[in-house]
């Protein structure tokens, strides 16, 4: 790691005051410290925010849940409200990383975790995300793990989070607090597509602090599933994942939520696919049609074409699982 100044912030005010240019907030550290060791992150100041009172999970009016930015991923996954109301979110969290990492990783840090693109993590490689304008080594390099949706000619890196995929399906909101006050950003707008500027990843502004995530009420989220497919049965990033929820009444799909991970440059909401399901029976043909719609815009590179069929089957598996729930 490169040397830096360490500040343990006692409260939000102190944290924001210490967050000068070139500073980074430290939550669980499982992204930040990792990337500092690789010299990808070189903050001049590290502001430890772990003493801030952002560790609550609370019910919101109407049946939603507010999750503090410093709630650990393992605590969110096992919380009775999350398990009962948003099983897909609990499943997504438990599908991520290892017990050790989940015990440290926080809600806010998970939202801001960085891509696992090998070239991004290797300071000797050209990477537009790490060094704007230097080129993208993945376009014609090893791109088996890269995205097929939402890519640009400048970056094809996936957003690696499992949690964010479930939150995208649930229309969650990110609560931010900054020098210019508080604001709320829908999660599906929080992460940005790479476009011409892959170095811009989220809507967060310098110095802004994530304080919480709001998951609004969604009655039919009790009928939901998160399915993650990876190179081994546990402890690996997704090659493809799907978070789905189904509103089933009278043998007909009234409403649906579908979001994808592992295949897109941001947590990917598949609204087109959701629409194809409305008014149809919950059967294999409907699910396959939705999967085809979700991947209609996919653009593979040399090594990741397999992800298109894999993602479709992952969607069908998740919808089948949700559809079969009592």
């Amino acid at each position: 790691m490169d040397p830096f100044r360490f500040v343990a912030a006692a409260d939000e005010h102190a944290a924001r005051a210490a967050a000068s240019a070139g500073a980074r907030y430290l939550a669980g550290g499982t992204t930040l410290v990792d990337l500092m060791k690789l010299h990808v992150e070189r903050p001049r100041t590290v502001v430890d925010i772990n003493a801030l009172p952002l560790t609550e999970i609370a019910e919101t009016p109407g049946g939603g849940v507010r999750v503090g930015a410093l709630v650990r991923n393992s605590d969110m996954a096992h919380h009775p409200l999350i398990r009962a109301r948003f099983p897909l979110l609990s499943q997504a969290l438990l599908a991520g990383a290892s017990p050790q990492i989940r015990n440290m990783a926080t809600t806010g840090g998970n939202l801001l975790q960085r891509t696992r693109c090998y070239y991004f993590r290797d300071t000797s490689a050209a990477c537009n995300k790490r060094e704007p304008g230097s080129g993208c080594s993945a376009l014609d390099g090893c791109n088996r793990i890269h995205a097929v949706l939402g890519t640009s000619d400048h970056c094809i890196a996936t957003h690696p989070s499992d949690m964010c995929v479930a939150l995208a399906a649930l229309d969650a909101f990110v609560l931010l607090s900054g020098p210019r006050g508080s604001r709320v950003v829908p999660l599906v707008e929080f992460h940005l597509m790479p476009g011409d500027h892959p170095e811009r990843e989220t809507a967060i502004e310098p110095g802004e602090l994530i304080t919480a995530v709001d998951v609004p009420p969604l009655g039919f989220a009790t009928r939901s599933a998160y399915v993650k497919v990876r190179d081994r049965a546990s402890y690996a990033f997704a090659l493809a994942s799907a978070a789905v929820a189904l509103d089933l009444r009278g043998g007909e799909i009234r409403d649906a939520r579908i979001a994808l991970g592992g295949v897109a440059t941001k947590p990917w909401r598949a609204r087109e696919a959701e629409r194809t399901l409305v008014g149809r029976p919950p059967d294999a043909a409907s699910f396959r049609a939705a999967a085809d719609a979700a991947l209609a815009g996919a653009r593979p590179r040399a090594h990741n074409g397999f992800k298109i069929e894999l993602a479709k089957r992952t969607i069908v598996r998740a919808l089948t699982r949700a559809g079969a729930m009592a």
Partner: protein
Amino acid sequence: MSKLHIETTINREPAEFLCEPHETVLSALRNGLGLTGTKEGCATGDCGACSILLDGRLVPACLVLAPEAQGRTITTIEGLSRGDALHPLQQKFLEHAALQCGICTPGFIVAAKALLDATPEPSEEETRYWLAGNLCRCTGYDKIVRAVLDAASEMKGSAA
């Protein structure tokens, strides 16, 4: 940059050390405090060899900055035995020959302790799922899982 003075509790004893901000708890334990039982495998959170308990929670010491230890309670592999009496997990790892080169062993035992603290009677599936963050290149895992399950049943027997 001047060194930071950190006060913690390690293995039930008060402990203090000096560190640079950019050191990790792992390097403070191994280099500063001479507690070399905790191993460094990958240094990137992937392998679990550096597993410790921080305020009772299982974490990878390689991703915790040393100054974050201020005021916290740490348990390492050295804190499991009582005098010469091995912890049941340590004893069962020996009996089942659940190790070869041994680099992963302290991490596995600390991780297994965290499992048994929360779930005294884990199923084999729960045990395997919990230990997924600990990598072993030698044993093929089976003997490790047997040792943990055997320790669990012995600990249950002695608690009754």
